[in-house]
């Protein structure tokens, strides 16, 4: 059935009738993103081995550094005569062929740290290596008074907890695993009554006012998101895995015209110090099956040209494999974008130079904050400088 028809039949045709009353009071015109674009950020936690994701399968140095772990010409899914895909990414092969994939190599930042948590914080807050920020880059995007940002669900993290990336100082993103979990979290009759009774009462003290305002916003946003999550049911087959369920949730919310512009989701487990082969393969298979299903859903509803999917990890891995059939923490890594709106898909830059390493690690070439700047400026349509706290040049010809 046609998506529009679905939406009409479920009585949710007009977004403005669905806007919770409390929120509507505070807002100016009805919702429509100025750019109409949607960003999905996928975080591969633990440090994905980028060299075994987009594989320089013919390179001598690659094979020599990875005697037990390299993916050879026979098994790799060759994209060019130099670079191939990890075989577990087969489901995303069509995206490369259709010009819907852009790989950016050697992404990182100066003085890289090899601590998972610290490096993840740096990626999430867009800080320097020696700087501690208490807000995330997407949180500051929400703080920037972007169009529609005053909605608590403008940015949604799929999960039970809200990570640093979506925490701002004025505004936060919204965490939800699924409709049922959200219902359970907000299903408290006493608090619901309290919320509707106290809606118009300004509280003494700024923090008390803030707590009430947040509580009421959460209750009303939850009602909205729970209803939206029921509008559209995907017919694609997603892997049976929390990540698969998460992407299905995203596909369904986007297809229901939810006024959410940013989605954030993680797939953990990439810290492959040992037995990397089986572990990375399993994770990348889950990743590619889920993402392929998401793209199919979006294409079915003609939304892929309005959607950008960015995938990153907090660091790459050491070029040389270790003694346990694994790899240790590295530095620079690839980041890739999937969208129906890429200007010059393929490879943004050359594969990393394996003959030029620092302490056995790749040298970064593109600061990750330039990718953020590109997405903010050219995709979400907001000036990136205040959000990234300094001027990072957007990448040319991405979107």
């Amino acid at each position, binding site marked *: 059935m046609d998506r529009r028809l679905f939406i009409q039949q479920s009585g949710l045709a007009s977004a403005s009738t669905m806007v919770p009353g409390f929120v509507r009071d505070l807002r100016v015109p009805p919702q429509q993103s100025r750019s109409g674009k949607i960003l999905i950020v996928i975080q591969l*936690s633990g440090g994905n081995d980028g060299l075994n994701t987009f594989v320089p399968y013919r390179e001598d140095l690659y094979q020599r550094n990875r005697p037990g772990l390299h993916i050879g010409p026979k098994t790799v899914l060759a994209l060019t005569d130099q670079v191939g895909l990890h075989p577990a990414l087969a489901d995303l092969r069509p995206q490369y062929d259709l010009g819907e994939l852009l790989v950016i190599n050697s992404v990182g930042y100066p003085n890289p740290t090899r601590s998972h*948590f610290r490096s993840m914080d740096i990626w999430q807050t867009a800080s320097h290596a020696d700087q501690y920020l208490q807000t995330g880059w997407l949180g500051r995007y929400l703080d920037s008074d972007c169009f529609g940002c005053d909605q608590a669900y403008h940015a949604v993290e799929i999960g039970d*907890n809200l990570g640093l990336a979506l925490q701002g100082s004025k505004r936060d993103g919204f965490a939800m695993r699924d409709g049922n*979990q959200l219902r359970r979290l907000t299903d*408290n009759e*006493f608090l619901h009554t309290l919320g509707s009774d106290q809606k118009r009462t300004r509280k003494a003290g700024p923090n*008390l006012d803030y707590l009430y305002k947040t509580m009421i916003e959460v209750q009303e946003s939850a009602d909205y998101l729970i209803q939206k999550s029921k509008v559209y049911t995907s017919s694609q087959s997603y892997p049976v895995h929390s990540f698969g369920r998460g992407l299905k949730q995203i596909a369904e919310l986007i297809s229901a015209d939810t006024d959410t512009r940013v989605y954030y989701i993680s797939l953990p487990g990439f810290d492959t110090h*040992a037995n990397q082969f089986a572990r990375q393969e399993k994770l990348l298979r889950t990743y590619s099956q889920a993402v392929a299903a998401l793209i199919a859903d979006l294409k079915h509803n003609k939304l892929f040209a309005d959607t950008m999917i960015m995938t990153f990890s907090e660091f790459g891995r050491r070029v040389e494999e270790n003694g346990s059939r694994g790899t240790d923490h590295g530095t620079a890594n690839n980041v890739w974008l999937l969208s129906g709106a890429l200007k010059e898909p393929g490879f943004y830059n050359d594969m990393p130079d394996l003959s030029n390493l620092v302490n056995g690690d790749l040298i970064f070439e593109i600061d990750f904050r330039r990718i953020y700047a590109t997405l903010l400026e050219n995709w979400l349509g907001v000036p990136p400088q205040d959000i990234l706290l300094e001027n990072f040049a957007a990448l040319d010809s991405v979107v």
Partner: protein
Amino acid sequence: MSLPTKNKHLWSRLGFGISPLNFPLLRDADLATNIAMISKSGSLNPLAAPTSPDGDLNPDRIMAMSQTEKADFFKSEEDRLDDLRDRWLEQMTNRVEDALAERMTLFWHTHLACICRESSVAASYLNTIRRHALGNFGELVLAMAREPAIIRFLNNQQNRKSHPNENFARELLELFTLGEGHYTEADVRNAARAFTGWSSGFDNQFEFRARQHDFGEKTFLGSSGSFDGDDIIRKVLEKPQCARFVAQQVYRHFVHEDPNEKHVRELGDVFYDSKYNIRTMMTHLMHTEWFYHADNVGNRIKSPVELIVQTTQLFGSTFRSHGDRTFLQRSLGQLLFNPPNVAGWPGGRHWINNATLMIRLNLPNYIIKRERMDHTVLRSLKSEGLSKPVQQLDVRVNLESILSYFRHLEYQDLEKNLVGALLLQEKAPTVASGREYKSKDYLERLLLRITSLPEFQLG
């Protein structure tokens, strides 16, 4: 029986709030008596280090492990850390006579923040803080610079004469003592040189490695000499700015997020004049008028640990499952020994987002009624990551220890009295309807609802 606001404020900020243990004192005694009681708090007993079946483990032994052994080790270390966290929380919960020292310990853990992954060094770090919690700040910092947990967390292991690592020296100046803008980059470099060779050895003890130490001359904060780490800390303590900076952090934590410059200066001067006596500064704070000013009362968002401790006391809760309190700390965003970074937990509104707020407001339901939670938390970025969803807390409660103080009252007075006891705000929304008087569990219902109010999140 609205308890005197100043008493409530005092215990809320410098202890863990109202509980059956301090209820009579809060209700019947004047402020002076309460101040006398709370500041009697002595020095704290050390907590026993968790024992590992494999004996003591040190970085070298860990380095020598295979990947699988290492993974198993850190997994069992997580259990031992949980055990230490539980025992720490029990001290905060049960020892109301030492509430002030326990609150200070929690404060120092935020101020001298350290992520600990090994239980024995975590215990040592914690015990050093507990020993000095109300003692002398200078001694506390001198001891911290020798704590293996701090040395490892801030890379002082790698601070060698040939290649100084500035991490510890920088954080010492920026976050622990002077604050940004009160030293130069050259000061950082020279301080780092003075701490070269300050390392920790096999036995998880401080170890001075003379061969890695730079005995040369250093210039630091305007004077020169062949300073070592202790000299650097003494030079820092000589600066009134150090007392002022720490006083400002104390003010932000215990009084108001936005520091009042005049009050901070007053507190800093007292601290400096007392030669960094922490008890003197805190006692002074309790005796100021401004501490009790209306702007400073009932407007501070309780930290997750404070909330867990107070709720545990208030409901007479016994947690029966080992990991439940760790789970709550993680889902509310404050896991002991695991601050987000060396700057500690930012606090205030940073505690609040849609998920944490709803868990906070539902907490009485989860504890008293053992309602279904269905929440998962991220355990680590390394493994598969997510915990099993905790469906229900395994906890027993004893509400009678607090409710017995109210049983003799008339029905129509109960709500007002409970609000007056549990909240700092003068007004609160009505939580029960007149028809509910008759229900048998009326008092329990009131307790549950009042502690579910957003007002209860503030102390």
